[in-house]
């Protein structure tokens, strides 16, 4: 497998922050409430004191360490600090704010879990919770993640190629597309229970890939990041990672994979078909109608003064591996 080496625009060691932000953020927001209400207290209340003031925190979602083979090729890529990866999430099932999922998903139950692979296959496959991390050899993949909102991260995922899972189910000749579905459980996912919290999305979240995209060696079923199982807010217990496409293609907390003959509906395309296409390949030349996609802000550290705007690469820099999938296709029309 070919994976591109880092370019010179990648970041230096000094860009990596210590891991600390998530709890601080939470407390910071509470202090903001203070400012709004009383105007004066915020700057004088220390973080710990205000945490005590608001009572003890409920139990957090637990992750556990995984055994995997390291990604030897991409270790030089400057990673986004773990605390940022796990506190800056678009997972509207748990709220539309970037920090909402890390706050609202802590009680999410992922065990027991069932992921079924069905449709145009010779044999249906069902993976239970334990199977997700044991059925296939796990490997680390350090990928760039480019959000359609024009920010990006570098994340060390752990998982197995989707191709291996599909091979187990043996797709038939009719299997032209792969459709994915997120868990639907409004009791656990406040965004599914309330249109306000869930950003007016019709749930369950659905996504899809063409079969050749799904079989590409880069396409990963991820069960972990930074050496541990996935935090709830990152799509536990299993999610898709398609690094050459905008982040919304990488559907989280998957319960069903269906091989189908026709192009399946996808959530953001249903919501705004003018803005989000089925392919959603990262492409600096095709703008979102409301903002440019030519560049992106790489989320690292350094606060407001981080000079982190970099040029967006075609296929997010994975052209060598995937450009052939789109030969003779008009990518402006098939955005």
């Amino acid at each position, binding site marked *: 497998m070919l994976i591109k080496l880092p370019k010179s625009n990648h970041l230096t060691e000094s860009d990596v922050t210590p891991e600390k932000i998530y709890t601080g953020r939470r407390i910071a927001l509470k202090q903001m409430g203070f400012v709004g209400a009383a105007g*004066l207290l915020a*700057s004088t209340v220390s973080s710990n004191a205000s945490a005590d003031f608001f009572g003890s925190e409920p139990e957090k979602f637990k992750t556990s360490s995984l055994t995997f083979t390291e990604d030897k090729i991409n270790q030089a890529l400057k990673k986004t600090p773990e605390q940022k990866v796990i506190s800056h999430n678009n997972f509207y099932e748990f709220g539309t704010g970037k920090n909402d999922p890390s706050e609202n998903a802590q009680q999410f139950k992922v065990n027991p879990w069932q992921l079924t692979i069905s449709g145009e296959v010779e044999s249906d496959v069902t993976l239970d919770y334990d199977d997700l991390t044991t059925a296939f050899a796990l490997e680390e993949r350090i990928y760039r993640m480019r959000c359609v909102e024009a920010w990006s991260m570098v994340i060390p995922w752990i998982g197995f190629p989707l191709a291996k899972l599909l091979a187990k189910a043996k797709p038939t000749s009719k299997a032209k597309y792969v459709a994915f579905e997120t868990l639907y459980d409004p009791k656990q996912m406040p965004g599914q229970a309330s249109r306000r919290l869930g950003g007016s999305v019709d749930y369950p979240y659905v996504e899809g890939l063409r079969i050749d995209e799904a079989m590409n060696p880069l396409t990963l079923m991820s069960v972990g990041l930074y050496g541990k199982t996935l935090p709830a807010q990152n799509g536990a217990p299993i999610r898709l990672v398609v690094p050459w496409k905008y982040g919304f293609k990488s559907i989280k907390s998957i319960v069903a994979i269906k091989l189908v003959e026709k192009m399946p509906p996808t959530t953001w395309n249903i919501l705004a078909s003018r803005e989000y296409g089925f392919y959603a390949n990262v492409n600096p030349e095709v703008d979102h109608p409301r903002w*440019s996609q030519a*560049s992106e802000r790489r989320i690292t550290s350094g*606060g407001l003064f981080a000079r982190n*705007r970099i040029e967006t690469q075609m296929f997010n820099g994975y052209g060598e591996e995937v450009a052939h999938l789109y030969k003779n296709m008009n990518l402006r029309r098939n955005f």
Partner: protein
Amino acid sequence: MVAISAFFREKMSNKTKTIFLKLVIHLSSLLPLIWLYYHAFNDDLGADPVEAVIHFTGIGAFNLLLVTLVVSPLAKWAKQGWLLQVRRLLGLYSFAYAVFHLLNFVAFDLQFAWRLILSEIVKRPYITIGMGAFILLLLLSITSVNKIRRTMGKRWQKLHNMSYVALMLIAVHFYWSVKSEIIEPSIYIGLSLVLLAIRKNKIKRWFS
């Protein structure tokens, strides 16, 4: 609340009340800004401080403009004419937040990529609209100086009626900027329309 309002009515002159309220406005506008940038500069404001400061200052400018435009109907309704004394201060703080909002976009989001900044302002209608609202607020702020106000005479009121246009532009800018979470901006559009509805007689007169 009753006790507090009674205290205000009986124990304080209107001048004292105005000074007191202005102090509250200064503190509740400035302290959040100081808090915001202190944490943002120290990378202590979530994973993406840039998004955080853009949203905070944008919604802050909108909130302050709404409060500014609540003042005169409130003063009329409560028969507290002295309240009008704080309207200009509130409006200027709304503009100040808008300045920071634009500065965040230029300096921290697009990071002085001037060609990109200009093309975004021209090509993206929601940014064009936001820029239009900013220019209106800028004009209103400049002309809020007493000297200029006097020399403008009748034209001053005409210009300052543009605050309602700015309000609606900001409401549309907010609605248009979100991906799918339209409920909050819809509520803001509703609030803005209420403020216009209160002034419907005045607005009708412009067109007659």
